[in-house]
């Protein structure tokens, strides 16, 4: 497989995944804030700032934000590089460039997705379309994942795409945790340890589509610790950082099983990092949550650049 084509497919995977998380983050944050239990969480500005923070375009605490502008920018604006719509464009551009390697079915779905996003009317979006658009986007990404899993040969092409998908998932989940950690400090809960019991943890779980399963497992209202444990360390939660790392490991190893012991290989690095998470207790990080979030980011970045060097560099 060509290094350039691998690069294209890796980024196709990343952009598909990014699209979904951004869209769901907008959707969940906006709609769950409408009847949030405390005044702070209900504030429009608070939610919009959180969305901008997640999109990598943070604004200061006192900056005025306009609802329609923010929603349009993050959702549909093709002049804003990190908009949901642009992620879809990039996903399709990458798929196009490696079109000969993927199935017709997958390409057709990516292409339909692209046409849906780029032709969605702005007027409709800012007035009434936010829910429809973002829900549709998350549905369509699910179709893409199904086409990836169900129509491609599970060979190195599949492995490369899944490496992209899981890298992005780990990153986006961590970004969400980061955003909601900040929000939880600003909008504490109303009883007990107010940070621990902030409503924002519930929102975070919903953003990660993990709320119901978390309730099923813990049988309690989400708190800071249980939420972080579930989303970072639980290998059975499909959205957790740990789960993503396990998958990355599996796919990297499948590319070249002989390289597991090579200290300079991506496989070795991912293996080393995931074993750290495997034996981590959530209580260990309680004292410095922000520090640990930054630590996850830097480890993911290291994996990313190692991959680049080993597989895509030419």
């Amino acid at each position, binding site marked *: *497989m*060509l*290094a*350039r*084509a*691998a690069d294209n497919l890796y980024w196709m995977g990343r952009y598909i995944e990014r699209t979904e998380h951004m869209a769901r983050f907008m959707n969940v944050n906006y709609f769950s804030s409408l009847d949030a239990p405390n005044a702070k969480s209900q504030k429009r500005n608070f939610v919009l700032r959180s969305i901008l923070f997640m999109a990598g375009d943070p604004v200061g605490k006192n900056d005025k934000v306009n609802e329609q502008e923010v929603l349009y920018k993050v959702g549909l604006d093709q002049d804003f590089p990190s908009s949901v719509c642009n992620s879809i464009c990039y996903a399709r*551009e990458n798929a*196009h*460039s490696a*079109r*000969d*390697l993927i199935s*017709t079915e997958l*390409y*057709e779905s990516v*292409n*339909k997705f692209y*046409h849906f996003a780029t032709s969605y009317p702005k007027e409709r979006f800012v007035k009434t379309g936010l829910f429809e658009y973002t829900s549709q986007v998350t549905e369509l990404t699910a179709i893409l994942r199904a086409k990836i899993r169900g129509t491609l040969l599970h060979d*190195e092409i599949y492995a*490369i795409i899944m490496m992209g998908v899981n890298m992005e998932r780990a990153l986006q989940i961590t970004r969400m945790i980061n955003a909601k950690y900040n929000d939880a400090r600003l909008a504490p809960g109303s009883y007990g340890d107010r940070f621990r019991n902030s409503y924002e943890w519930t929102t975070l779980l919903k953003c990660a589509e993990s709320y119901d399963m978390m309730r099923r497992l813990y049988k309690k209202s989400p708190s800071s610790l249980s939420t972080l444990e579930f989303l970072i360390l639980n290998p059975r939660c499909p959205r957790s950082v740990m789960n993503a790392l396990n998958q990355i490991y599996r796919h990297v190893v499948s*590319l*070249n099983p002989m390289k597991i012991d090579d200290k300079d290989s991506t496989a070795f690095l991912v293996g080393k990092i995931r074993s750290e998470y495997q034996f981590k207790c959530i209580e260990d990080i309680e004292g410095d949550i922000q520090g640990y979030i930054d630590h996850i980011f830097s480890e993911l970045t290291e994996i990313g650049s190692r991959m680049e060097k080993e*597989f*895509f560099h*030419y």
Partner: protein
Amino acid sequence: MAKKQKGIFSKYDRNPKLFDELYDQQGEVNDVYKKLFKLYGQHSIEDYAELNGRAKASFFNQGITFRVYSDEKTNEKIFPFDLFPRIIGADEWAELERGVVQRCKALNAFLWDLYHEQNILKDGVVPMELVGSSENFLEQMVGFDPPGGIYNHISGTDLIRHTDGKFYVLEDNIRCPSGVSYVLSNRTALKRALFGVFNHYNAHTVTNYAENLLDLLETVKPAGVDKPNTVVLTPGMYNSAFYEHSYLAKTMGVELVEGRDLYVENDFVYMKTIHGRERVDIIYRRIDDQFLDPLEFRKDSTLGVPGLFAAYRKGNVTLANAPGTGVADDKAVYTYMPEIIQYYFGEEAILHNVPTYHCSRKEELEYVLDNIAELVIKPVDEAGGYGISIGNTLSPEEIEEVRNTVRAHPRKYVAQPIMSLSVHPTYIEETQSFEQRHVDLRSFALMGSDREFVLKGGLTRVALRRGNLIVNSSQGGGSKDTWVLKKSKKNAG
């Protein structure tokens, strides 16, 4: 008209001066079309408009589009596709196929000769200056034996049917002929929209093109290679034919590479993969000669691979088509095709050439001077349509002027009859009805060291503007699925 028409053909306006593919000379529907005519006739125009819309959506969603550059954004457009197929009967096709193969082989023999002994020039069959002045003649290819002795592995022959009902070759394309992917996507689209009609006919498949392409390319692998590694070389995703490049690579199951994915070391070609380098043995290249290798041809080419031509000359990699084929498919050589076929094979050309009158020959000059109004007068040495006079568009004064020019320099001019392309019923969206539109046919032939293959089908291109003879997609042309029928009872009227 012999019988009363109903349904979607009820308003069909048949100009009897044109050759209509659907009808015979008596105005009866041709045998091969009878069932189709009946089946389509059962649809109302509303049904048909809906099917047409669905077929368009299918192309759009599959991303079978080309890009149009407007002021601000790039837009994507689909190639207009017509749901009423063109049908070619088994016997007629067999003749076409034999003719196409004969031509491709003759072109190959001609190329071998040009780049070796040049006997055909020495014998005066083709004028020396015709080749000497051609910028497509590559000095670098002189004396080189391409693997398997094949130059034009992939050929596209453009055919038209004249008002006399016969097929004529309009042009040979043996550089990087394109369009075959549209043959396949047209078939797919027609199957999606109107699957029922296929039950009534036995048409040949067109999906076997890619497997034959790979098979035949592998017959010209470099010496000493057991399992050759074949790739398709594309200029990149912004090329207008990128869909076709990716389609062919995918269906052959080989890598689609750009120039930057390849490099040459010690005269061997390698591609850069996720596991390091991998040797490349056969390159189906879809970039022009001049861009292949900046060390040998255009120095500013970023599409090619430095050192590629040296590796080719060493016999370490096969290029298809071979560089330098352009010398044989230009308009000047075209006029000598019957002589070229005769010279190498001692055979009559099976496919008609549009007859060409060489004004340098006395008796032909007389004919030309007397019949300018019915002829196209072309200068021999000008390319790109310059200096062409079309007889039936000229005033009497202009005709006199042309006559004088030709008489003054007879060696500089050739003349051809004005050819009229046949027409085919075509659905026109604006008027929501079927109308006559001019069509041509591009056939696709492959040549390996041990056999040939002609795709049983082809690209029927349609000039969508009324009266227009130009079928190119850049000029608003569309296309049709083209059925070549098997010999069977089912296909009989």
